[in-house]
């Protein structure tokens, strides 16, 4: 198992290298001059040249890429050009390893940007995950047990309705009505645990988490329902009933154990995707998470931030995949390899 994880991690690193190269190439293949963008509207050609030099855009793409990789491994300093650094030592920014780059737009290193946004996205994704998995499994199981009844149809229909509404509708509804107009909960604002303690932290996550959870829950309700129903027809369920087990025990110990295994894979991938994918929800509730950061970076042509985020979010998916596979072996004894 250990060797397997190492091998998977190795493949993951190669994948990330390829991703970063592709992002670099795509960026420079576009007709926009990044130096001009970074410098601003009223720059003279000389200023643009200076900017390019400071950011390293004047170098060939492949050299920029290797510089970037060096920065990730050993850290680097900005401005990129040694002459410029020597000319104005007071303006030099140090970017320790793993350095993902320097964002001119926000005048800070990408690492700092991510350090700000990451806890927001992580909190949001965690809150949503807990809500949608709990809700999805409970409602999906109830629907399966009461298959064909009003309860079943109601649950499936309701989950579909929530799924059909776009995130900005549910988000704005929760914000404008539940929080502001009816004042059922305080208006959500992200408070780190360090500042406001777990209570305020959770309170802030309630509505945005719910917005995301409602969106994801529909799929989980339907899948849980289908998996539980499928497992109920298995021979081992008949065996369990023939032993004289109570229905509840047959359902929880025998049926759900088998039904929930495939969900683990989906949970891992959805969670990783949500880390950078909750763009609309983060925008509606004005949460400065990774999704919002990515959108802003794209709008301002902020290459270092874009590359940093691509790699970070890519590594989330890769790591989540490895964790899911390891978990799978823990859950299903047949997968365990000798």
């Amino acid at each position, binding site marked *: 198992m250990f060797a397997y994880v190492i091998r998977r991690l190795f493949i993951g690193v190669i994948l990330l290298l390829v991703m970063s190269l592709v992002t670099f190439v795509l960026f420079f293949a576009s007709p926009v001059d990044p130096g001009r963008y970074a410098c601003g509207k009223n720059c003279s050609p000389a200023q643009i040249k200076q900017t390019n030099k400071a950011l390293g855009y004047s170098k060939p793409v492949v050299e920029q890429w290797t510089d970037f990789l060096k920065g990730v491994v050993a850290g680097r300093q900005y401005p990129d050009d040694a002459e410029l650094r020597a000319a104005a030592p007071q303006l030099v920014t140090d970017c320790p390893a793993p350095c993902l780059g320097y964002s001119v737009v926000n005048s800070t290193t990408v690492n700092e940007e991510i350090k700000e946004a990451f806890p927001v996205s992580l909190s949001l994704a965690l809150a949503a995950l807990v809500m949608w998995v709990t809700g999805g499994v409970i409602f999906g199981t109830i629907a399966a047990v009461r298959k064909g009844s009003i309860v079943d149809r109601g649950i499936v229909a309701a989950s579909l309705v929530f799924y059909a509404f776009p995130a900005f509708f549910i988000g704005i509804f929760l914000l404008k009505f539940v929080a502001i107009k009816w004042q059922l909960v305080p208006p959500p604002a992200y408070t780190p645990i360090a500042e406001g303690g777990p209570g305020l932290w959770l309170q802030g996550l309630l509505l945005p988490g719910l917005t995301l959870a409602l969106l994801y829950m529909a799929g989980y309700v339907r899948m849980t329902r289908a998996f539980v129903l499928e497992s109920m027809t*298995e*021979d*081992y369920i*008949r*065996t*369990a*009933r*023939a*032993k*004289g*087990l*109570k229905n509840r025990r047959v359902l929880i110990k*025998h049926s759900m*154990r*088998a039904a929930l*295994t495939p969900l683990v894979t989906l949970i891992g991938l959805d969670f990783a995707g949500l880390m950078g994918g909750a763009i609309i929800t983060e925008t509606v509730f004005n949460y400065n998470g990774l999704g919002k950061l990515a959108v802003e970076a794209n709008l301002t042509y902020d290459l270092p931030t874009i590359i940093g985020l691509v790699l970070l979010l890519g590594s989330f998916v890769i790591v989540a995949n490895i964790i899911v596979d390891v978990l799978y072996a823990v*859950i*299903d*004894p*047949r997968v365990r390899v000798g």
Partner: protein
Amino acid sequence: MSSFLSVRDLKVHFPTVDGVVKATDGLSFDLAKGKTLGIVGESGSGKSVSSSAILGLHRNTTAQVSGEILLDGVDLLKVSDEEMRRRRGKDVAMIFQDPLSAMHPYYTVGNQIGEAYRVHHDVSRKVAKARAVEMLDRVGIPQPDRRVDDYPHQFSGGMRQRAMIAMGLINNPGLLIADEPTTALDVTVQAQILDLLQDLQREFESGVIIITHDLGVVAEMADDVLVMYAGRAVEYGTTKEILTHPEMPYTWGLLSSVPDVSGDTNAALVPIPGNPPSLLSPPSGCPFHPRCQHKDKVEGDLCSTVLPELVPGTRTEGHLKRCHITNPDVVFEREVLPEIAPDLVEER
């Protein structure tokens, strides 16, 4: 006759959108303690459905079950769901055809066997596990104290079936239903499993119902045989009587499709032509008549219009058959026996 298990006029019907599927239609039989009943028939003849009804596994489904299932004088169709649940696995246990799919892949063999014990006995996990080890040892699993922690997929087919038997017998049930216990196993293992079942039956004094389509299994195991076709009993009697003097063309067909290694090995097997009938719209009259090769021996169109009653045959009172042929003993001796076992004809 006060028998241990007495089934009377058992009907299991499944209403579907296309009509009612009469999986079992008016089945009656008896079983004494320590005896074995073999239920024989093709796939879909209602064997498994009938035995599931004895365990009450059709409760809370759409199936309609009627009749009487008296176990030690108690009608299992009338007891409450909770009472039935308490009897399942304790008074009546069942072992299934394919032990790989019948055991939960995510739990150890010991966990699953111990669970069967813990449902009916208020004991700790440790005690249940010790009991599981004891049972695994009893059914001939080597190193049971180590194998108890294995998962089903780590067992061989024969060992899994032994483990299933251990699970079935752990509560010492009065009645054990074995649903095709050897079908998924290879031949040498089949014989071992059947021997084991017989040993355990003697030891535990259980009544056993063995469901099979293999007349070889019946010949070895069963005291009585019930031949089923399209949800009904078509022949019922002692094993010796049914196997040596069958009086129903379907039983003849079953006999002639059994390979005989002691006889002429070049002899072609004679399968029963056609397929089992649809239980949704069974043929009129005798359900076997479209496949019957002997219906010309019955006058007129009796076979296709009137369902024959299950009545005593020509030889003994206890031998029941459902056929219009008036002289089945003669037909069997003259036409069927020479075809399936010519060497036996001379002996007689």
